[in-house]
């Protein structure tokens, strides 16, 4: 009836126009996934920093030759197949031939060689691998040959670890570049998203890379076939945790990282957000100075300090609910393929001040000041550090607590004569050889002959069982010589709105936003 009157026609036209507008609006709507991060990353050149914030952004646009799957194994990613010679000294990698860079060029063997060379020459993690490498050469359009100086077990793990890792860039960008980080727009990779723009203090925007050539396998952790399911990704620095939470609750952000433990129970009951726990822990680490000061060659005094500590008290204060921490001393959590109980008998469950005092006396300690450097920049370090320092004081250690902002602490720890203990945190690493305390050049400088001998054996074999047995011995040695003390594991958690689909139950290490859709 309506259609026959003038009003009816008007209504009909209006609804047709509205319908058209809705349809065209939907067709042109750009879906943007907004991620609230704690701060801006220092830069986006993942080869040159291990900063987590760089990794979180970069994971979506840069790719590596190998990638870690759900089980934590390094599997071929930009590489199609590989072959290791019987003597373990030559690896021939065949690259996938369909991989496109964001600038439209196809990835070649030369791009890979130049990317690896720059990382090996200047990247902190790259040097670990390149110290063991004779040469990396393009031996075909899609073939790269790596020649090792000796058998080197962790090579694939190092090539797969994106944090401070060998992202592959086009030759014209990466060839002969020094340590200076690339400009944001130079981050041209092969990932499902490409760099859009970085507005200082506002956001970093990545856009969907339409010509992305996914790996042909199923998505599996950071490996397998990826797909961008939104048009844009925005990473927005929201420093205040309360604001990050409110922003997700109100729908202003879709995802927010690093929420504090005190909100965990409340947010688990809140229908407007979902919590997502990190599967891999972050661990606070107290580094002892092995190159200078009171602890130099005095392993007994370090063990005395350890005997004074009750790690669970520090962990509970720093991380909150018991779901989010575990006061355990193994360098990998239970369930991880690298978990071992080597040396754990010495891990203090309950501190014993009297025993610690006696051990210190036997180690020749006469109340000299012990310089402990701590930072206010990161709450986990500050909170655990303060509790542990008090426990040390209770056992009679004369702790000179020095508090700095992070850049100052980093500056001071590089000098062997300025400190005795400093605290930092360490992220999850897929291979023990990546632990900073095993790195001879890292402040702490653990270079005892026993460590060097075990470490050489450990990296010098590719046999999985042998590597595990040697890692067990290394962990046991770390409890005897105490280059670091680890009070436990902290599990961070993030939150997201209920409209996000495709996120795993638990993050592998960092969130990745390929395969994630907004409804």
């Amino acid at each position, binding site marked *: 009836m309506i259609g026959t009157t003038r009003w009816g026609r008007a209504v009909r036209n209006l609804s047709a126009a509205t319908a058209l507008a809705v349809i065209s609006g939907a067709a042109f709507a750009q879906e943007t996934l907004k991620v609230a991060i704690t701060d801006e990353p220092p830069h986006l050149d993942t080869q040159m920093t291990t900063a987590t914030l760089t990794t979180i952004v970069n994971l979506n646009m840069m790719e590596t030759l190998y990638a870690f799957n759900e089980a934590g194994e390094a599997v071929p990613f930009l590489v199609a197949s590989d072959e290791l010679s019987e003597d373990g000294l030559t690896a021939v990698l065949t690259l996938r031939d369909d991989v496109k860079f964001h600038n439209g060029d196809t990835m070649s063997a030369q791009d890979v060689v130049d990317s690896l060379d720059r990382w090996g020459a200047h990247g902190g993690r790259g040097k670990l691998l390149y110290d063991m490498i004779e040469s990396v050469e393009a031996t075909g359009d899609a073939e790269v040959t790596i020649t090792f100086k000796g058998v080197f077990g962790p090579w694939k793990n190092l090539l797969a670890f994106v944090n401070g890792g060998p992202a592959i860039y086009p030759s014209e960008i990466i060839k002969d570049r020094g340590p200076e980080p690339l400009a944001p727009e130079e981050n041209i990779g092969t990932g499902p998203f490409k760099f859009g723009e*970085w507005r200082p203090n506002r956001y970093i925007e990545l856009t969907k890379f339409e010509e992305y050539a996914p790996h042909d396998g199923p998505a599996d952790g950071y490996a397998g076939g990826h797909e961008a399911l939104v048009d844009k990704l925005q990473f927005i620095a929201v420093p205040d945790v309360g604001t990050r939470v409110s922003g997700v609750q109100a729908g202003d952000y879709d995802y927010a990282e690093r929420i504090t433990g005190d909100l965990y129970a409340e947010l688990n009951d809140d229908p407007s957000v979902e919590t997502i726990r990190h599967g891999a822990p972050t661990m606070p680490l107290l580094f002892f100075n092995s190159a200078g000061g009171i602890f130099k060659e005095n392993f007994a005094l370090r063990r005395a300090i350890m005997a004074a500590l009750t790690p669970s008290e520090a962990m509970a204060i720093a991380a909150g609910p018991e779901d989010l921490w575990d006061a355990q001393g193994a360098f990998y959590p239970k369930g991880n393929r690298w978990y071992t109980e080597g040396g754990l008998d010495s891990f203090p469950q309950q501190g014993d001040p009297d025993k610690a005092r006696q051990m210190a006396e036997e180690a020749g300690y006469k109340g000299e000041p012990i310089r402990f450097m701590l930072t206010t920049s990161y709450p986990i370090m500050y909170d655990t550090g303060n509790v542990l320092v008090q426990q040390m004081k209770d056992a009679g250690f004369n702790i000179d607590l020095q508090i700095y902002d992070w850049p100052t602490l980093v500056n001071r720890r590089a000098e062997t004569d300025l400190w005795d203990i400093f605290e930092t945190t360490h992220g999850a690493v897929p291979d023990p050889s990546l632990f900073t305390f095993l790195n001879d050049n890292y402040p702490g400088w653990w270079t005892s002959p026993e460590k060097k001998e075990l470490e050489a054996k450990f990296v010098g074999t590719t046999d999985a069982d042998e590597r595990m047995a040697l890692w067990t011995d290394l962990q046991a040695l770390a409890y005897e010589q105490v280059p670091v003390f680890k009070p436990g594991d902290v599990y961070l958690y993030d939150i997201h709105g209920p409209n996000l689909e495709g996120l795993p139950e638990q993050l592998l290490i960092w969130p990745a936003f390929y395969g994630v859709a907004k409804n």
Partner: protein
Amino acid sequence: MGTFILKRLLSAIPTLLIASLLVFSFIHLIPGDPASVMLGDMADTAEIEALRVQMGLDRPIWEQYLTWLGKALQGDLGESIYFQEPVTRVIAEGAETSILLALFTMVLIVLIGIPAGILSAAFHGGKTDQVVSGTAMLFASIPTFWLGLYLIFTVAVGFGWLPTSGFPSVLESGDLSNLKYLILPAITLSAPNSALVVRLVRAGMLDTMRDDYVRTARAKGLLEHKVILRHVFRNALIGVVATLGFTFVGLVSEAVVTETVFALPGIGRLVVQSILRRDYPVIQGIILVVVVFYILVNLIVDIVTTHLDPRVKMA
């Protein structure tokens, strides 16, 4: 008037030079450098040193200062180490947010603080005065981070009336509705500042009320509201104008806490972040701009004051 302004501007040059020299030396005295911040935890000393050389940080401080000064005189404040963009652009990004937020807040401060102050003074000692002064004390005592989070929690999350945080550019999009992002931050910032203005207006007016000419005005039979507004308030305003000027500069450059709570890309947060990152060119650039801004606002305050009080001569 022209000579006065010119003189004032010329006298600003030594101030600027001294300020830039002080800032330059202080920030280079703080330990820690941008190279180690950028290369992260795993970088070895050799790489950090190589980057320092590449960035020119190994040269003597006086040489770095002169290079910077030479460029600054030509309007080139250098490039941000962190963002790898011209400092002027980085500051301009922050300036839009900070200036709009400060203007918005100033409007609220004037609309709330001045009438409340007048009321409080006009009825001093009475119930109105007690209520106004009490409320002012309450708002002056509330920490801004708490008020900010409370407003986010109730108004933005609870009622969903306003966005929780962030601020998309108005200048770029031309979309004035983006100003809604600044409502809660402006309320947060105006609370303690309005309270200050209330106290100032009240105190200034109470001082003036004891003056002879006010008694004369009343004696000749002027209506009370005319006495208050035309004679008392106008004279009390002189001190308030100076305070408002500096409050405005403070709002632009020092609203760190509010900018952090509301994740606003403003100048205050930028300067604190730049200090933590040791982004020397940005710190120097901002300080320079803020000093210039202080000088200009000071000049404007002086001009306004001479209009309000003809006894103050422009010298």
